[in-house]
């Protein structure tokens, strides 16, 4: 009922990576139908994890580069969900180009070789004729070369670097009065109706490619400019795109097109002419896959909440969308950039009490709302501060950097750091630049703007970082904020969540019938190994036994010598004698539960092992092991210390015999932080401590120690040579803890005071009625 290697395995890759499992597969394939072998190293970039939302820091809205990054990340997420993988059916155009270039080169080389050989065979008369003709042609070529290509080639060589020119020198495009105007924006546009995914085929590394049209200056028939050529902000935005991985200078490979026509501020442009300018872009095609950026939409008197320029199917990244104009899943809401906070450096401010509870800093507030605010101030006194613009400033002081309350003058935006909550009230437009200032200052925004779509609301959970209050409730705003628990306020101020995302978060008790796979790591202690196999095979829930043969110089024993057991037994040979081989996610592991067991652990009884499995079922996301160990802080040495004394506490279990979820094998092999995996293999020690660190770090939970067992003793091991060796061992283990803690950047291990015993363990109860009577001691 077990299979053994039929032949020596081929030379394996130096590390037991995926390649080696495949080899093992092919060698030890025993007619069992194999799963398509996975290649864990070839992976899709994981989609943006929404738990990290808003995580970086509060200032992300302030720097335009980050805004771009945020935008692309969010756009890319939307995009990726639509476009799951590279589209590689068509030939990549760059390959075409290379091929074409090669054809040209090869042709000319051929001609070079043949040319001189052909000529001597011709008659002299003809020869002279040909040579003369040829010389004339040649001269002509040289002449044209001199005059046409020479200066141009100088320019184009500098073209290969980033151009340095003046905005004033850009080409002028004259728009005839009757040139076409795009349709108005189509409100029913969705990704699957208005977006052409087929253009996004050429995207190595799953990044969308963005093309930026070159800058032109648009004038109407009479030569009057259509808009400002480009604003500083839009220039920086385009520069950021151009510097990112998303940029392509090849219009044929682009998936998104960004016009260089600046529509950030609707007030500065002529709507009809700007639309005409858009329509004449070379790949416009009803605006498909074109992306426009706009921060100040609409204009008096009705202030539309989206850009008024007719734009057909173009996507809009806009500040100040309302629910009426926002096309869910198509448009992107962006923050309105504030030039103020970019100019001022604000120090980082942690969560904690502030001088004011609520602050309003906006200068132009509708009189009704200002009344409400003043009323709040009158009612709650010092804790509410309502600022207005300053009327009595001396000459030369920039009024935008000052705010006043009666005669008191405050510096803006610094004053925002003095408050816990800052009001972001809508004006005629929903998007307010003050939101950027407030977030940057680390103040919790109180957004009072009905129907406003908050920036990046598709990927950001604004509830974690802001309070949204209906305009109607404006007068109750103080009470609403007061009712928020202190703990939540601090989380909002922090604007991030320090959550561990346990990969096995679903409370689930796996069925007992599934059983577990025992993995025995062995080198050459065959006799002891066979005893372990025999003992472990007595455990009722064992479903498969896997022997990891870590000795490259010696073959495993012949088939007939192995103990005959009731479950399948497989032997995996490794390429190198590494400790990490025991934690490799072998395809042979079919159960979720894995029992890692050394080849000398023969003292554990069948009851103990079966009970360990039952405990693992109740705690499938933890390491469940027998002897426990502890880490301690050594105050004298100022570092961590490994403790194997029999104490009242446990923070690790030895993996000489431990149950755990097979997913942790995947994590150990492919996701172990830093160089820990190699370090363990090099030192041939501490693989168990590394596993304890890994599991505790990813789950945030403590280990479960099972039964009284305190140590593994093996009859075959001779007593360790004296105390000194033992001492060295302890020092090494302590070193491991310190090394791992520094790599993880934290001490993830959790200390607990309990262990798991069978319900009736050592109770006054008939032994024969107990489920697990045979539990060994110490």
């Amino acid at each position, binding site marked *: 009922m077990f299979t053994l290697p039929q032949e020596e395995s081929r030379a394996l890759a130096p590390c037991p990576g995926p390649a080696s499992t495949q080899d093992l597969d092919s060698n030890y394939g025993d007619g069992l139908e194999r799963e398509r072998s996975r290649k*864990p190293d070839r992976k*899709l970039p994981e989609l943006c994890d929404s738990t990290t939302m808003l995580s970086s820091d509060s200032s992300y809205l302030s720097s335009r580069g980050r805004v771009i990054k945020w935008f692309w990340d969010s756009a890319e997420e939307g995009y990726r969900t639509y476009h799951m993988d590279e589209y590689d059916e068509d030939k990549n155009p760059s390959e075409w180009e290379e091929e074409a270039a090669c054809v040209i080169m090869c042709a000319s080389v051929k001609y070079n070789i043949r040319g001189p050989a052909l000529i001597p065979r011709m008659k002299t008369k003809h020869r002279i004729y040909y040579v003369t003709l040829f010389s004339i042609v040649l001269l002509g070529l040289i002449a044209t070369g001199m005059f046409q290509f020479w200066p141009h080639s100088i320019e184009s060589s500098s073209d290969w670097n980033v151009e340095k020119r003046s905005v004033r020198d850009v080409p002028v495009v004259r728009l005839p009065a009757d040139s076409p105007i795009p349709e108005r924006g189509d409100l029913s546009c969705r990704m699957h109706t208005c977006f052409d995914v087929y253009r996004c085929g050429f995207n190595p590394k799953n990044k969308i490619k963005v093309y930026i049209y070159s800058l032109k200056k648009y004038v109407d028939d009479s030569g009057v400019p259509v808009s400002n050529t*480009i*604003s500083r902000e839009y220039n920086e935005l385009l520069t950021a795109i151009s510097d990112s991985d998303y940029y392509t200078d090849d219009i044929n490979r682009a998936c998104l097109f960004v016009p260089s026509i600046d529509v950030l501020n609707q007030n500065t442009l002529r709507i009809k002419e700007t639309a005409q300018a858009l329509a004449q872009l070379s790949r416009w095609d009803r605006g498909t896959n074109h992306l426009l950026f706009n921060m100040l939409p609409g204009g008096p008197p009705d202030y539309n909440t989206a850009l008024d320029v007719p734009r057909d199917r173009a996507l809009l990244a806009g500040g100040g969308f309302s629910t009426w104009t926002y096309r869910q899943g198509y448009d992107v809401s962006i923050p309105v950039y504030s030039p103020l906070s970019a100019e001022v450096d604000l120090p980082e401010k942690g969560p904690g009490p502030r001088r004011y509870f609520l602050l309003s800093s906006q200068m*132009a507030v509708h009189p009704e709302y200002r009344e409400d605010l003043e009323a709040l101030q009158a009612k709650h006194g010092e804790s509410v501060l309502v600022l207005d613009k300053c009327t009595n400033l001396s000459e030369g002081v920039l009024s935008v950097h000052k705010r006043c309350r009666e005669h008191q003058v405050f510096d803006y935006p610094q004053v925002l750091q003095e408050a816990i909550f800052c009001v972001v009230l809508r004006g005629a437009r929903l998007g307010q630049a003050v939101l950027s200032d407030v977030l940057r200052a680390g103040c919790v925004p109180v957004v009072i703007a009905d129907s406003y779509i908050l920036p990046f609301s598709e990927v950001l*959970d604004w509830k974690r970082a802001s309070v949204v209050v209906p305009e109607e409730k404006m007068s109750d705003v103080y009470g609403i904020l007061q*009712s928020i628990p202190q703990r939540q306020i601090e989380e909002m101020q922090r604007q991030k969540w320090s959550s561990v995302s346990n990969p096995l978060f679903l409370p689930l008790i796996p069925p007992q019938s599934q059983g577990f796979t025992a993995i025995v790591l062995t080198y050459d202690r065959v006799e002891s190994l066979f005893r372990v196999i025999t003992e472990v095979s007595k455990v009722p829930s064992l479903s498969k036994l896997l022997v990891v043969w870590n000795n490259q110089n010696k073959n495993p024993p012949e088939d007939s010598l192995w103990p005959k057991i009731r479950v399948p037994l497989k032997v995996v040979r490794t390429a190198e004698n590494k400790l990490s081989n025991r934690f490799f996610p072998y395809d042979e592991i079919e159960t979720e539960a894995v029992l890692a067991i050394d080849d000398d652990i023969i003292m554990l009884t069948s009851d103990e092992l079966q009970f360990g499995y039952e405990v693992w079922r109740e705690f499938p996301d933890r390491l469940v092991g027998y002897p426990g160990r502890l880490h301690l802080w050594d105050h004298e040495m100022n570092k961590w210390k490994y403790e194997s004394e029999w104490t009242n506490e446990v923070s690790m279990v030895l993996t000489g015999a431990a149950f755990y979820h097979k*997913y942790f094998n995947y994590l150990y092999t492919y996701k172990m932080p830093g160089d820990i995996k190699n370090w363990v293999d090099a030192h041939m020690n501490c693989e168990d401590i590394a596993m304890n660190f890994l599991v505790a770090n990813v789950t945030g939970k403590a280990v479960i120690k099972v039964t009284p067992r305190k140590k593994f003793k093996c009859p075959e091991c001779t007593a360790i040579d004296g105390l000194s060796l033992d001492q060295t061992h302890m020092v090494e283990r302590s070193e491991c803890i310190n090394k791992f803690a520094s790599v993880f950047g934290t001490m993830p291990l959790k200390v607990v005071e309990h262990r798991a015993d069978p319900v009736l363990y050592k109770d006054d109860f008939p032994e024969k009625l107990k489920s697990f009577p045979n539990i060994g001691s110490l």
Partner: protein
Amino acid sequence: MQSWRRKSLWLALSASWLLVLLRVFPLLRLAVPTRPWAGAPQGWPRWLDAELLPHFSQPGELPKDDLQPPRGPRGGSCDWGSCFDVSKCRGGRLKVFVQPVAGPISDAHRGILASIESSRYHSVSPDEACLLLGLEAPAGECSPVPPQWNGGRNHLVLSLHPAFCPQTFQLGQAMVAKAGPTVDTFRPGFDVALPLLPEAHPLRGGAPGQLGQHSPHPGVPLLALAEERGGWRTAGADSSACPWDGRCEQDRGPEQTHPGATLPNATFCLIPGHGPDALHFLQALQAGCIPVLLSPRWELPFSEVIDWTKAAIVADERLLFQVLTALQEMPPTRVLALRQQTQFLWDAYFSSVEKVIHTTLEIIQDRIFGASAHPSLLWNSPPGALLALPTFSTSPLDFPFYHLQRGSRPTGRFSALIWVGDPGQPPLNLIQAVAGSQHCAQILVLWSSEKPPPLRWPKTAVPLTVLAGQRKASDRFLPHTAISTDAILSLDAHSSLTTSEVDFAFVVWQSFPERMVGFLTWSHFWDEARGGWGYTAERANEFSMVLTSAAFYHRYYHTLLTHSLPEALRTLADEAPTCADILMNFLVAAVTKLPPIKTPGGPESQPPAQDCINQMAAEFGSMPLVSSRLRLDPVLFKDPVSVLRKKYRSLEKP
């Protein structure tokens, strides 16, 4: 001469060739549309005068705009702010009145009515309600305009089944909660998207999720495809390049057809997006099969609060081949997370009609709450928003469920809540034992006896408060405001515990704050003979309940028991104290899906007096209790080592 000529000609020729080579190669290089030299990509120009460019808006410009009056909503369309009158909800509480339906009502309707009545939002009078709920009539019949219609303001029209009566009455300002609404007509933040439920969807409780293990079994096929007739077709990993009906007819080898409504057994479930195919969608969720929706034209259920990116994949049907490749190569970490999330969502919001209705109302309540609504985390992680009441707190760490997720543990101490029933004997020894614990913050005596409480109480190190009870068994589970700590040690006057037992159990509870940690256990079993559940207090190898006469648990469970359980259950608990014990155990198990924890110690357990377990199971819709076979002991418990080493040595006294 000839030779000289020839030589000179040759010379000229070679010279010209040299020139040609010199000239043509650079030209050729130019002819190739240049890949720029490595390291210097051609990009957006660095303008020499970039610093001189004007800002997109001038600082003075914005305030000028802002002096406009705020605008009201536009006609025709509705959003929450403009079409719902929040001021009608007194105290910010949602109260729902169900419009009476004329004529006979179907079973499905009766079910919906029952689940609304069982919810905490139900109101019997239209005057105190702030949401009037109209039920869409069964298919074929269209109901007339209901009374108090008022243009649909503060109305919710509920239609669980797809046969939506078109233009029954002008919907006006009414919200529509409809199964599988199309993306085009759906008003985000105003309408509610419901799942399309099968006819026989259970009213209460509902079938548990089918996921038996966290990660996919290695033998399970990669894909199952939703078929037009219902049912699923599974495709092996190898044939996945050609799975779609009609696209790849020749390759049908390894596929099997499963007619009928069996649940798919695969890692991913491909669901086409043309119609509201929510039946398949729900089946996939229940089976723990990750739904892959191909360009869905319908709004995903409860999309306002549920983050579907954590549980499903929305892909473009135009890129089917790429989608398949991406699914094959998806990293195990993501597969694992998606699978678990499908199960959690199924159990939390979709498995019964009652859950769907309650979720709908909870979403509307959240809109009314505004700032104090559930944070997204509470909606999107176990146990779900229906079980994490925002009225208790909106900060996750105040709940028992999120500590372990975040790697933290509750700090602080515990409050001992001692229930004194008849004959009204003050539990002096117990008070001393509990007050001796270093973790005890306060002692509360809930006096529920006919006899008046004594005027003098023993002096204790911690404050002692006497609360007057209503002489009902469920008294002890009221959210008494006097309880100041997260942890409650619930005790009966006749319990006997030692300080050491209390100390150890509390430390264990800190590691498992969402569970009950107790000393005395009962276990439930299926009684074949009676065809019902039974339970026993006999000592056994496993247990599924701990007695609340001596148990630690989080104070949130008092709030949950009082405010979220139906009245009927609490009345049941009042009938007998053992029923109250069982109720608390049912509740915690239903929320956590985990067994309680037993620690050593405690007095002998009492045999249960009255059988109420079957009634409870019927009310819950299923049996939530989970059995455990382990007990948590101190690390050195009863070990043959020096007593001096042991921290909890008095635990071991026989």
